[in-house]
Every structure is written in C-alpha cells, then in structure tokens.
C-alpha cells in the first residue's frame, strides 16, 4: 500500500543493507519486495560475496510515520530474545536513511507465513500437531525476560496499576481518537471489564516483557513446526494473559473459529500447555477479561482503519471494508461477556 518516495526503491534497499553492515561497498544482490503493508514494506536481499552469502530482510517505513522509537524497541526486544536462543530473526541494524525512512535489517528465516495454509493445508498437519507445545514453550521463555534485560525502556503500566486497568485506560484513549460514531457495545464492555477487574485478586507475578502482537499471522513455520516469530513492534511490559489471549482473538482464528487458540487448539488446551511450560497458574477469570480486551483492541483497529480511509490518510477499499466490520467483533465481545456473566452466576 505504501509507496517508497524514492524513485529507485531497489537502490534504497541496497543502500540500507550497506549502511546496516557499515560497508558502503558491500555486495548486495537480489533485492525484491516480500510484502507491502500500511506501516512498512518488507524486502528480501542477499548480502555478501559468492560463497559467503547471507539472506536478509529489510523492513522500511515511510518517512513521517514516526515509528523510529517503536522500531528501536522492537530491535532491542529482538536482541534480548535472540541472545536467549528464542526463535526470532537475528536483528542486525536499526536506523534512518538519508531521506528519513526508518529501517531495520535482520536475518531472513526460512519458512512460510501464510496463516490460512498453516490452519488448513494437510501438508502442515504435522506442524499443527506440535505447534501449541512449541508456542507455549517459546512464550513462557519470552515472559521470563524482565524489562531490565532490554536495552531501551518499553511501555510500562503506571506503578501499582493493574495491567488490565492500564489497558482499559489506553483503549478508552484510542476510542476517543478513532470512533467516528458512538459504539455503545465497546463503551459498555470497557466499563464492565473495569468493574470485573476490580473484583479480581491482585496479581503476584512480577511484570515482564510481553510480545505484544502474538498471533498466528506473525509466525513462520515449515512442515515440522515453528521456525520464527516476527513483528515485535508492539513489545511492552505487562502480564502473560495479554499475549495468551491476543492469540485467541476471533479475528486471528481465520477459518477455524471453533478452535479458539489461533484456529489450532481449544482455549483450555492452550492455557494448560502454557501452564506446563511456564510452571505458572493462569487465573481463568483474568484470562477471560483479557480476551474481551483483545477483541476490543481489534474493534478499535477496525475503527482506526475506517478513519484512515475516510480522512484520506490511507485511501483504500480494503481499509474501508475492514472498518465496516466492527460489528462482527462487537458480537464476539457480547458473547464473551455473556459467558463471563454465566460463570460468575454459577
């Protein structure tokens, strides 16, 4: 969707890789666009002379999008995760080029990233069988990383504030910024989550690093299972349930809405796999409230996309269409809160 302002995008990628390795004459070949997105474009390139070549990915953001701070957080998170042997791309460089584009260079990990293929293609049945265990193990290790282990400060809840309430605050702020008309379901859901969260016992586990965009569409895989976890720009400090439930958000189940955990497993199976891998107990009521908030977050994304189309920031029939689908997510929010109500009554 975004267009690099440069008239020579391939040249810009070659220059970015050279800047990244600090060698203005480094051999760079085969630059090609992998995927274009609203926020940035991903390019593949090969670095090094014949015989000593290395595949890299360059992620380029258009100037003025002002995500340099987020890119640095992502880079620092990848450094921390990679140094612990987690399945993430090795981060090589983050910076800006001469025309103000923020970019990041990382190693290219083999594998596919199409979530629908992962969820339905018989060739990946073996991967699906082991994936939940692998993801639980990886995520448990991500959550062992403390904020002090990351070289730049990450977004953190205010001192002593419950993470759920902090997330409600953030979402209310986002609602005020993006809602084009009143959405009583979203307003009610945020109030309800807040009221139910206040009844929960206080958490005892110390805050830790949270992936921030852990979902099936951000995974790389092959027929044996997970190969890499991508897109860490939502990384922040918080609690495990945030990641565990975002993975269950209805929109990320694609054509398997019956399998709540990413279209791969049932919710309870996923929670138990995480409990086994982490040695921590997950409070089901806290989990349920986070799952509502995950869906509210997606409802707000759809509103933001509608707004970006309507105010011509990013004119796109696709954003307009997604923007019109807020009601689908509101229905899920009402269903989840209906179940939550039932569990309290029982």
């Amino acid at each position, binding site marked *: 969707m975004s267009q690099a302002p440069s008239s020579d995008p391939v040249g810009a990628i070659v220059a970015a890789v050279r800047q990244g390795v600090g060698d203005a004459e480094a051999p760079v070949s085969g630059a090609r666009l992998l995927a274009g997105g609203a926020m940035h474009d991903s390019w593949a390139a090969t670095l090094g002379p014949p015989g000593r070549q290395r595949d890299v990915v360059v992620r380029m953001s258009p100037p003025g999008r002002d995500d340099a701070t987020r890119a640095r957080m992502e880079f620092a998170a990848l450094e921390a995760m990679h140094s612990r042997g987690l399945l993430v791309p090795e981060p090589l460089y983050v910076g800006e080029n001469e025309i103000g584009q923020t970019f990041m260079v990382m190693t290219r990990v083999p594998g596919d990233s199409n979530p629908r293929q992962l969820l339905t293609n018989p060739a990946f049945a073996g991967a699906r069988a082991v994936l939940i265990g692998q993801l639980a193990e990886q995520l448990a290790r991500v959550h062992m990383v403390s904020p002090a282990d990351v070289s730049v400060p990450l977004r953190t809840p205010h001192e002593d504030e419950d993470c759920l309430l902090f997330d409600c605050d953030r979402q209310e702020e986002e609602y005020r910024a993006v809602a084009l008309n009143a*959405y009583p379901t979203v307003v009610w859901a945020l109030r309800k989550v807040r009221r139910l969260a206040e009844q929960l016992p206080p958490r005892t586990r110390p805050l830790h690093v949270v992936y921030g965009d852990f979902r099936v569409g951000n995974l790389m895989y092959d027929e044996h299972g997970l190969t890499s976890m991508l897109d860490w720009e939502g990384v922040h400090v918080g609690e495990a349930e945030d990641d565990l439930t975002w993975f269950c958000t209805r929109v990320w189940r694609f054509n398997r809405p019956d399998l709540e955990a990413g279209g791969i497993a049932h919710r309870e199976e996923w929670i138990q796999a995480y409990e086994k891998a982490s040695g921590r107990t997950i409070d089901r009521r806290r989990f349920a409230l986070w799952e509502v908030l995950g869906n509210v977050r997606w409802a707000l994304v759809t509103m933001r996309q509608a707004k970006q189309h309507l105010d011509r920031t990013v004119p796109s029939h696709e954003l307009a269409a997604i923007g019109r689908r807020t009601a*689908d997510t509101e*229905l899920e929010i*009402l269903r989840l809160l209906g179940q939550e109500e039932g569990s309290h009554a029982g």
Partner: protein
Amino acid sequence: MQDRPDATDLLEAVEDFLRTQSAAASERWMRFQLLVAANTLGIVRRELLHEDEFVRKEWSGLDRLLGAEPLPDAAGDLRAAARRRNELLCERIRAGVFDAPEAEAALVAHLLETVTDQVRITSPAAL
C-alpha cells in the same frame, strides 16, 4: 421508479463478476483484493435491503432504554437522530445508569439485537 435490473440486481451482478475473477486470479494479492471488493458490494446490497427496518428496530430499543421519542419522518433524519441517541446511550453507560443487574440485562439485550442486525448486513455467514 427505476426499471429492473434495480440497484440490488446490479450490485449482485457485479459482486458475482468480482467473485469469479477472484477465483480465477493467479496472484494471491489480487485474489484477496477482488474478494474484499465482492464482499463490500454484498454489504451495500444487504444494507439497501434491510437498513430501514433495522434502524426502526434499533429506535424502538433505544425508546425502551432512554424513554420514547417520536420517529423522524425522513430517512436521513432518522439515521442522524439514531446516532445522536447512541451518543446519549454511551453517556448514560459511562455515568453508571446501566450498572444495576436489571438495567444491565435490558441494555445487553438491546446491544445484542442491534449488533446482530448489523452483522446480518456486514457478514451474515458469521451468525
């Protein structure tokens, strides 16, 4: 009055065309874009068919929660007025008017009915 094919006939024809083109497209990106476009026309078609009925239903639901108000005559006024009433509903939710169990149950019943009608237009397959 326009002759047939009318607006919904025309939308359906273009929707079918886009869906066929999507299935035949070799490139994943184009396949997806054509499918999104076809689905969007489906939303427009269903909105033309049902919107009037659904807004009136929503209006009666809002009458029960906020107190009765006469229905505006013109369709444009009706939509604008329904938006204004939904703003008022949000203000009252925030003020805690629907916190008590009975009031909350009435609110949730209305929200569920309204959102379900919206989904009947946006993505009936999800119901």
